[in-house]
């Protein structure tokens, strides 16, 4: 059955407000299907013609935070959106990353095997230019960004009167692209929202309770650690208290490793760096989540992530803190070669309402490590309750 028929009308909505720090798109109160798409996501840069968006987050590397409001009521949000997009891009299949997201999200993932070696995918990443008509622009499925949209089929104008999407753009331009030199004077393009209106007057406004999963974050600061020095941290993470968390992913975000001081073709900060002798134990409501030591090897870390978040599109060695030799496994200077030792997330299921959430984290880095952050990304259960008097959003 075709989705598009005479009962569906597609609108392209221009930004109501746009500058280089934020954009806002407003929607009229109509019955909208929830398959919202953000288009024309991109930028121009003066005087250059050879830069490409960061490998894992693509055109979304410019989006720091994105919010979905109804008037002043926050419906859903994704803070550090670029980190979420990077994580979710890695969760796509190799084929999808090579053939679809390379075009739509402008990521640089997906690999092929040539002459028995793993190398980058068959099409080059899109180039950012100094011309708005030729620069690379991306397309973002907002259902993958807002759990609120994923949880609903239609967004009724009778319930939500002043829908607006607010985007806050990143200003640390040096971290947005694969290349490191000459990244100044970036100008974000004016994004557009593509939405489908449901013209079927017989469709009913949903009422009652609608659950949805919203991504929330919290952070832990990790001190700088010298080479071969054991580091240990035991602390409470309060950002998820009194919330039901289904799954959690943790990224080790190291801005120093990923920023301007690093060479070209790095993954920048939209990744998670593995560490030598890394161990994580999680304490949920005063009970240790993992028996024995915890997640005490890179393989267990990667396996648990695969079991609970689905397979990640990473080649062997991406989760190792280093690799002695790689000339026989990767093509030198290809995307998988850049990834070795740079992609290692924690991921597990919690499935509990948290009253106390603690982590014990240990590492003994194989090189001097600057201060960094553990970024906790949790799937939090929310509930939208619609009645004749309006609606309420609450944590379950």
């Amino acid at each position, binding site marked *: 059955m075709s989705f598009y028929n005479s009962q569906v009308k597609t609108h392209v909505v221009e930004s109501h407000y746009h500058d280089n720090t934020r954009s806002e798109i407003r929607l009229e109160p109509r019955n909208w299907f929830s398959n919202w798409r953000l288009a024309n996501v991109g930028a121009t840069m003066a005087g250059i013609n050879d830069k490409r968006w960061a490998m894992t987050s693509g055109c979304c590397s410019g989006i720091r935070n994105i919010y979905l409001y109804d008037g002043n009521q926050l419906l859903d949000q994704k803070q550090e959106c670029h980190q979420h997009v990077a994580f979710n891009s890695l969760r796509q299949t190799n084929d999808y990353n*090579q053939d679809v997201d390379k075009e739509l999200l402008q990521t640089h993932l997906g690999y092929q095997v040539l002459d*028995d070696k*793993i190398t980058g995918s068959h099409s080059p990443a899109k180039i950012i230019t100094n011309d708005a008509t030729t620069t690379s622009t991306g397309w973002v499925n907002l259902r993958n960004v807002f759990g609120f949209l994923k949880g609903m089929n239609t967004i009724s104008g009778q319930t939500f009167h002043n829908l607006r999407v607010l985007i806050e753009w990143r200003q640390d331009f040096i971290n947005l692209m694969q290349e490191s030199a000459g990244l100044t004077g970036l100008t974000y393009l004016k994004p557009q929202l593509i939405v489908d209106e449901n013209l079927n007057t017989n469709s009913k406004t949903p009422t009652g309770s609608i659950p949805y999963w919203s991504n929330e974050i919290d952070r832990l600061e990790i001190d700088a650690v010298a080479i071969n020095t054991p580091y240990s941290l035991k602390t409470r993470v309060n950002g998820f208290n009194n919330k039901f968390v289904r799954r959690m992913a943790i990224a080790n975000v190291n801005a120093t490793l990923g920023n301007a001081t690093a060479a070209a073709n790095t993954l920048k900060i939209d990744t998670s760096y593995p560490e030598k002798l890394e161990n994580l134990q999680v304490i949920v409501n005063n009970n240790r989540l993992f028996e024995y030591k915890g997640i005490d090897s890179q393989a267990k870390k990667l396996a648990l992530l695969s*079991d609970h978040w689905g397979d990640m599109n990473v080649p062997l060695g991406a989760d190792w803190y280093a690799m002695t030799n790689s000339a026989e496994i990767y093509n030198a200077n290809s995307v*998988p070669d850049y990834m070795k030792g740079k992609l290692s997330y924690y991921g597990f299921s919690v499935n509990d309402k948290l009253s106390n959430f603690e982590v014990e984290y240990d590492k003994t880095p194989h090189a001097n490590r600057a201060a960094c952050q553990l970024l906790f990304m949790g799937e939090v259960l929310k509930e939208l309750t619609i009645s004749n008097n309006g609606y309420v959003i609450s944590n379950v």
Partner: protein
Amino acid sequence: MSYHTIFPTAQKATYSPTNNIDFKLTFENKKLKANSIRVSGKVQVELTTGVPIADQVAWDSLNGSHNLFSEWTTSFESSGIQENITDYPRYHKMKMEAQNCQEDFQKSSFASALQTPSNAGVENVFTGMAAADYAIPFSLKPNICVNNMSGDLSFNKKSRSVYLQTRIGSLAEILFGQEVTSNTIINITELQINYETVPEDNKDEPLSMVVLHSVKQVINTSSANINSKVPAVVVGMSASFQLVTHEKSMEYNNYATEDPNVSRLQLFWNDMNNNYISFPLESREEILLNYLESMNSRGHNDMLWSKASIDLGFGCGVKFPEPVDLRNQTMGVQIESGITNATPHYIYMYFQSIVQV
């Protein structure tokens, strides 16, 4: 949900080739979460003691750390042995080859089991993360019946304790290459099983498991007749071949799926109504297509004519249109091939059955 870690019942600091290892999973008042069993540890391969691998040493790359475990036996305290798979890495290799093309190996569940798309890159796996740190962590999900369940397994109502027994393969089963000698060392440390449980809900719903039965025979003629009997109702049979002289030889990959130039295959059995069924496959294309169906291939595979022509990437098999009861009858397989008495081959047949628990 709870996460568990257990160690072998006879725990050692280091495990070596041909060691037998037993695990006991006890989860009273809980259910074993379906398909959650992982084997984790660290593997270190050395040319001789203290000398890391330089090159010319490999294992079957599509298997990765699955190569380490040559047999798996699964038993329930309540009902005894459920499954006994010999030549386990060969079946795993056949599954990998039939269900994945080389590009599909760029994913985390394979990376954690040290699986790579090509044997050529394996030496880079063995050299590890740093010069002094080449004990490589692995975590694999063995393809055994308790990882092929339709639902969670109740301790109280179904299995009681679950016993897993495995054997670490011999050196020549695991490794191959010009530099492999009897002095080559494989050490496995921190060996453990990780599994997950969920609370017991006291529902006694039927549960099905895919159980494998393996049969190995020798063929030494161009027109061979094989009769096999397994104690199960089977839904498919998949087979691969190996030159007898290549078995457990350090020079050859013990899990290569060799092609003895099979030109015709015919299977015979009696169906549930005792009707005699004959199923002939007359061309190599037909044989390969049916093999892929028997391995539940999903459109991606690594079976290339270019590989088959160099004696790799071949198999035969059939997914039966309806279950076949082989408990009281034999299945006949007639194979016409290029095998002679000068080039005898093993045929490894794996029968898949679905068992209600």
